[in-house]
């Protein structure tokens, strides 16, 4: 069992009852259980939390449970005007726990000029909605310039609601100073996503690593020390030429996330476990990778009831194997790393219910069809 919050990394049995974690011990008698999962040789971890998803109105369950994700956070596909519809169409229709950063602008997601977030009502309306709805965990800023006003607007909402913002740095030319952003505009606890992106136009935005010298920029290290959360948000915005030198310099991402969208699920990103496997391959320890995908994101979205396996917590779990072999992991520009370990999701449990079982390791097996009549499966 790997439970980073509780600093557990050892062989342990875990018992679930009524959708909650009931008991954790060295040896729990199997006679007491109605269903037993043989997880010998496998790892048990808290259900994964992916804090950057961009599926819009596509239902997430087909992309989450098969890779151990039990909670996703939609990163700005809805805003204070469209959130009610997003909740009805997606949050309430999904077996995955879906939370949301609402976009700090008015109107449906359109990108570009519509995302400037400079309307006067946006901070007050967004924060009001966020405080009255438990599914909202913060505010998303998809930055398009020209100055840091949209970020300030998000932070204003964040201060009112006591919630973080997640910033997608986007692009603008000329690009305002990131040092200013990290020291004057973002607060400790705010989230900077797409940490390892390359913007081809060198003047458009500072990158974490200087591509000539391969050295990490001090402003990023200082910002992380100050408490800014650096999130992966893989999508099409992940490059080894940023991630590998940064890791060599001792900089690890605070949270691992996918930026899951229909464009990236078949390409370089694929899914949460593929992204986690990349970080394992780059040299991050298994425990650190699990932490950055469970407890750290739970804290980042201030949902500390999630992301750990303490007795009494909701029973969201993943059982995974580390496959051994020769694997390749490629990124946005087509560059590839080869590794010898890969996460494989064996089982996902959400709220105490088995929602995915790759090889049938439960006894008795779930009758997914019979359950289907109860659970829409």
């Amino acid at each position, binding site marked *: 069992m790997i439970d980073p919050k509780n600093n557990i990394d050892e062989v342990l049995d875990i018992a679930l009852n009524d959708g909650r974690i009931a008991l954790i011990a060295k040896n729990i008698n199997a006679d007491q259980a109605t269903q037993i999962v043989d997880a010998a040789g496998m790892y048990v971890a808290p259900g994964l939390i992916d804090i950057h998803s961009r599926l819009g*109105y*596509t*239902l997430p*369950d*087909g*992309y989450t*449970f*098969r890779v151990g994700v039990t909670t996703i956070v939609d990163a700005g596909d809805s805003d204070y005007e469209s959130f009610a519809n997003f909740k*009805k*169409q997606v949050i309430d*229709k999904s077996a995955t726990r879906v939370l949301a950063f609402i976009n700090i602008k008015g109107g449906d997601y359109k990108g570009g000029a519509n995302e400037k977030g400079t309307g006067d009502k946006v901070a007050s309306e967004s924060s009001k909605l966020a405080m009255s709805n438990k599914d909202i965990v913060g505010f998303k800023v998809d930055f398009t310039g020209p100055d840091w006003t949209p970020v300030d607007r998000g932070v204003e909402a964040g201060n009112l609601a006591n919630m973080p913002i997640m910033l997608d740095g986007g692009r603008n030319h000329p690009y305002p100073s990131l040092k200013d952003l990290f020291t004057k505009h973002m607060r400790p606890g705010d989230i900077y996503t797409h940490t390892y992106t390359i913007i081809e136009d060198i003047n458009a935005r500072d990158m974490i690593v200087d591509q000539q010298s391969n050295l990490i920029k001090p402003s990023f290290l200082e910002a992380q020390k100050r408490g800014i959360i650096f999130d992966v948000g893989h999508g099409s915005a992940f490059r*080894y*030429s940023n991630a*590998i030198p940064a890791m060599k310099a001792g900089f690890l991402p605070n949270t691992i996330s996918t930026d899951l969208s*229909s464009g990236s*699920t*078949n390409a370089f990103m*694929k899914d949460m476990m593929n992204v986690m496997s990349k970080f394992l391959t780059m040299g991050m320890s298994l425990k650190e990778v699990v932490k950055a995908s469970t407890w750290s994101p739970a804290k980042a979205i201030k949902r500390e009831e999630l992301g750990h396996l303490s007795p009494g917590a909701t029973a969201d779990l993943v059982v995974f194997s580390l496959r051994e072999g*020769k*694997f*390749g*992991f*490629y*990124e946005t*520009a*087509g*560059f*590839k*790393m*080869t590794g010898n370990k890969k996460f494989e999701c064996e089982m996902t449990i959400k709220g105490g219910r088995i*929602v*995915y*079982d*790759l*090889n*049938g*390791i439960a006894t*008795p*097996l*779930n*009758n*997914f*069809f*019979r359950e*289907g*009549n109860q659970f*829409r*499966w």
Partner: protein
Amino acid sequence: MKLKKFFAAVILLIIVLPCYYNDTFAQEIDILLKGGQLIDPKNNIDAKMDVGITNGKISQVASDISATRAKKVVDVRGMFISPGLIDIHVHVFAGTNLKQQYMDGPNSLPPDGFTFRSGVTTVVDAGSSGWKTFPLFKKNIIDQSKTRVLAFLNIVGDGMGEHQQDRNDMDPKMAAMFAKYYKNDIVGFKVAHFGGPQSIPVDSAVAAGNLANVPVMVDWRGLPPENSLEDLLMKHLRPGDILTHNFHAGKGAGATAAMYKEALVDASGKVKPYVFRAQQRGIVMDVGHGGNGFVFSQAIPAIKQGLIPNSISSDLHIGNMNAGMKDMSNIMSKFLNMGISLKDVIKLSTWNPAVYIKRTELGHLSVGAEADIAVFKVRTGNFGFIDSHGGTIKGTQKLETELTLRAGKIEWDLNGISNMGWNNN
């Protein structure tokens, strides 16, 4: 001595090179799959063959094609090259209309996230739309997807929507007219989930099938018990028509009283004699795994007695994507572990379904065919497989999709075998 050989080689090169210049340096092949075991059942190939792809089509299949002729070479040694899989039973009319289920509703899935990663390049939506709702399906899904999406049109005009039980909404003439007009997209008709006497939907669908010269696929499970399966297979359906969910558990196995399906294998484990006669007659036995349509307790005795399904399909929808079905490669792995050879499993998932939907330009890798290709590895280890009702088998082999190409474009690359190393910048 060495020097002499070297000069001889140089002289030979100077003489020979110009003759081969075009072949050697033209790089007329866009993508070359090199070193794999090609399984192309239509062309009866099961051999080590290289496959060249040019302008989205198969340009050459030969035992050794020089790498210098290709712009991109993908090393597929130790892997199996197959025609892209054709899944003739899916539900992909995904939509946001919460009043609906499979027709423009949340129970259907957007295809691209579920196809390429398991080697599927063509799907046939099985009756989610009817003639009244097909134009929306075409606009929202068929024209928006990278996967080739075809359709069995529901014999009910509305499709699998709110009105799927409406027996006054089955118009063979209108259905046939749409099938002829959209002949690039519509490959047949579907009887799905209908609760009335079979003569109404099945005979209407067959009438439409006769008018448009296309097959009919029947989901048997909704039909009440007074309709015998023998009559359906021997009298109502024509050779070439398709019975899907063929390894359904049968009567009483469904969770609701409305599901009356008669099973192919009887309580003593024997395949009913008329089932063989029906298959000999040309009725297509299709798997249509789904969330309720496949149990090992039917499939294992049936296969032992020689009842091999004609085609493997998934019945992909929201209710089975994470359950026992999962995806096409998982279902194929089940049949592999039940004793069907890899070559036959691939045949049941490529060339056979292409023939049944009368799309014989698909499902094979003949030179000139569109380059829809799947590359698999057969993993060995200890695997488990689950059916629709909590039954399980253990197995030692499992298909894993390494690469999927659709019309010559790489749409899935599991391990980046078509890509460079990160520091080759």
